[in-house]
């Protein structure tokens, strides 16, 4: 699954640490998601989309 989390984070001008605190996860998890190493749960994906005020598809892109 690809994502544009880094872009959205840059738009909001927040660090990985800030986003991690907002999402109540570790900074390493945000880093792993950005690098495409870890796919977040539906709950976390919704939480991120809500935080960035967009839809899940704007942040995460599922590819076969």
């Amino acid at each position: 699954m690809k994502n544009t989390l880094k872009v959205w984070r840059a738009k909001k001008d927040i660090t990985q640490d800030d986003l991690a605190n907002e999402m109540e996860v570790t900074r390493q998890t945000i880093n792993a998601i950005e690098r495409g190493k870890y796919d977040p749960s539906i709950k976390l994906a919704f939480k991120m989309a809500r935080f960035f005020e967009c839809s899940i598809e704007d942040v995460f892109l599922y590819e076969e």
Partner: protein
Amino acid sequence: MVIYVQNKDIGMLVIGALISLIGVAIHILEPGWVINPIGTGGAFVGAGIALILISIRSIRLQKKGTVVEDERIFHIAEKASHKTLTILIILEGVLMAFLGVTAFNIQAYPIVSMLFVITTLSYAGFYYWYKRQM
């Protein structure tokens, strides 16, 4: 929620201290019903100290407001546990078959100790492997 977590950690601290004390008592008193007082006492003290250190680390991180566990950590732990369990089932199956075929009279203590070490090393190894992967 915060109070609950802190109570849990304080509970773990107390249990850790109690286990360590039991270990020290076994080591010093050497009761007759304990076959290996040094090994047993050491195991209790080790487990107690580990529990105390984990609790102190958890309390310190909570005070800083750092998130210690999240879904990724649980996912990594889940995968490491699954691999460890698979290895242990295979190993124990082979061991049972070997003991059944050869009728070897092996003492239980070294075998259980070996399985304990393999479990710990396997889990720690897989945990750090998956942590690097994810």
